[in-house]
């Protein structure tokens, strides 16, 4: 197989690491030296070879360990995976999308053979070899959404579309930036976005919703979101906030490089064919500050972004208390020289 999978952890001893190749392909999210919310949506078309955009669903060196972490989080809290009864068909749509994409993009690791409704699925990295009947739940060990998202990196939410709105009514959410599926399930687009500062008043959610209601099958789109996480913890859930919250207070200038991570979400949106629902995969990438500054452009730029970021955003993203420490640390890597436009390394 083309990918060497890391054996690593996302909690307790935090052995998560990016390889040099992993650093090079990291999706640095800032095309400019400053940042503000915008309707940053572009077509999700295949990108540069080796980049996280090369394939529909990126599989990387963290795949196997991330799936182990998901199983651990689910065992502790099954409410992280929920699907309202009418969302099962959308779950099948998602299963088909992921299986077909992975089998096409990574034929050495994933294989899908269809014999009418009888599907044979092989997932070599996770050692899965299952035969089931498409659209028959009784032939799978879990519901279709849970079955396939236990085998796919990133969180997933499924939105039903009705009354000119989107309703978050199913999801697999174990690597979230501090929001609760259990609390938000059943909400409409503006409701689940209610806690976000400034963006509502800027008309961003009105425009984004209008755009998504017209999203076409076969024409997926993507956008980035980002935040900050101390230690490479995927499960920064509100449910467990009382457990991971203290880590923010123990960050010191000496440990910033190793412990502070930039957390980037590559979010994609697909219209699903049978259910007309929209799936929202939220893929999380983590990079330590010390790895990030090995790309000079990124170090310079992140310093400037964090310096000029509106305080409301630093508050909302949960790093206001450490903001000065982070910018002080990054200042060593900003010589003031100009940065080229776009997010690719120079």
């Amino acid at each position, binding site marked *: 197989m083309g990918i060497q999978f890391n054996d690593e952890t996302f909690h307790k001893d935090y052995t998560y690491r990016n390889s040099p190749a992993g650093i090079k392909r990291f999706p640095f999210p800032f095309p400019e030296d400053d940042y503000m919310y915008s309707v940053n949506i572009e077509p999700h078309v295949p990108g540069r070879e080796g980049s996280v955009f090369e394939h529909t669903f990126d599989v990387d060196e963290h795949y196997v360990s991330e799936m182990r972490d998901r199983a651990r989080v689910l065992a502790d809290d099954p409410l992280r995976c929920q699907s309202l009864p009418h969302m099962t068909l959308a779950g099948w749509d998602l299963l088909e999308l992921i299986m077909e994409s992975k089998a096409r993009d990574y034929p050495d690791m994933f294989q899908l053979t269809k014999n009418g409704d009888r599907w044979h699925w092989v997932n070599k990295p996770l050692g899965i070899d299952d035969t089931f009947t498409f659209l028959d739940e009784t032939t799978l060990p879990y519901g279709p959404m849970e079955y396939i998202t236990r085998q796919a990196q990133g969180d997933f939410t499924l939105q039903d579309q009705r009354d000119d709105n989107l309703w978050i009514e199913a999801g697999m959410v174990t690597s979230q930036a501090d929001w609760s599926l259990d609390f938000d399930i059943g909400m409409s687009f503006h409701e689940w976005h*209610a806690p976000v500062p400034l963006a509502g008043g800027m008309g961003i959610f009105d425009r984004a919703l209008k755009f998504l209601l017209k999203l076409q099958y076969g024409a997926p789109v993507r956008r980035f979101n980002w935040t900050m996480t101390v230690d490479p913890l995927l499960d920064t859930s509100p449910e467990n906030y009382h457990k991971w919250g*203290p880590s923010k207070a123990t960050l010191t200038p000496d440990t910033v490089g190793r412990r502070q991570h930039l957390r980037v979400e590559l979010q994609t949106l697909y219209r699903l064919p049978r259910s007309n629902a929209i799936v929202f995969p939220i893929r999380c990438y983590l990079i330590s500050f010390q790895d990030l500054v090995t790309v000079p452009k990124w170090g310079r730029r992140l310093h400037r972004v964090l310096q000029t970021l509106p305080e409301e955003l630093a508050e909302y993203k949960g790093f206001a208390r450490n903001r000065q420490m982070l910018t002080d640390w990054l200042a060593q890597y900003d010589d003031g020289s100009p940065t080229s436009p776009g997010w690719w390394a120079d």
Partner: protein
Amino acid sequence: MKMTTTKFEPSITTRPVYGILEPQQGSAHLMIADGEGAGAILDLFARAGQQGIDLRPSTHLIYVTAANGTDLSDELSRLGVAKFYHGPTLAAAMSRITKALTDASMGLQIYLAGTESLIGVAQSEAMKAGFPHDGMQTEHRGSLARRVQCVHCKGITENVKTDPYVCSHCGLSLYVRDHYSRRIAAFQGVNIDAEDPGQVPDMVEKFT
């Protein structure tokens, strides 16, 4: 005692907003109220009277004493509606409410009045029975005490008046967000001293 409609500070989009009960045309009327919500029901009947609408023969009124003890059941019993029930608490009345909602025929008009807890819980129950949330009339009267769900243990604490408050289930100190789930009929409570264990600010009476 707040006998008039409550004024709310501007907030985020999930924070519920309420109106004023207006008489509707319909074959049947289900009214659910607690405490000071009785005032909204009395005003509703007065308004209906002025408009020449007689709601009484087709009204089922479910009224419970509020958590703060307010009980105006005597006034309501004198309205002379077809079905009147007075119960001690919302929890005690729940099975009746569920039955009234599931027995309902098309064209049922729903009116909810009183505390946020009562409106929220009744609305969530009606949504489960298939009524769209925006098809119901709501009017807030009385206490602003909140029903809050602890995001950590999922336990719901009724009648929260302070911010922060102590979760009645797991004992964590929680701050009360304006983020509200109609499905759970509760605001969200989040641990306030997660980052600095033990540093809990004083409780302030905020929801009275």
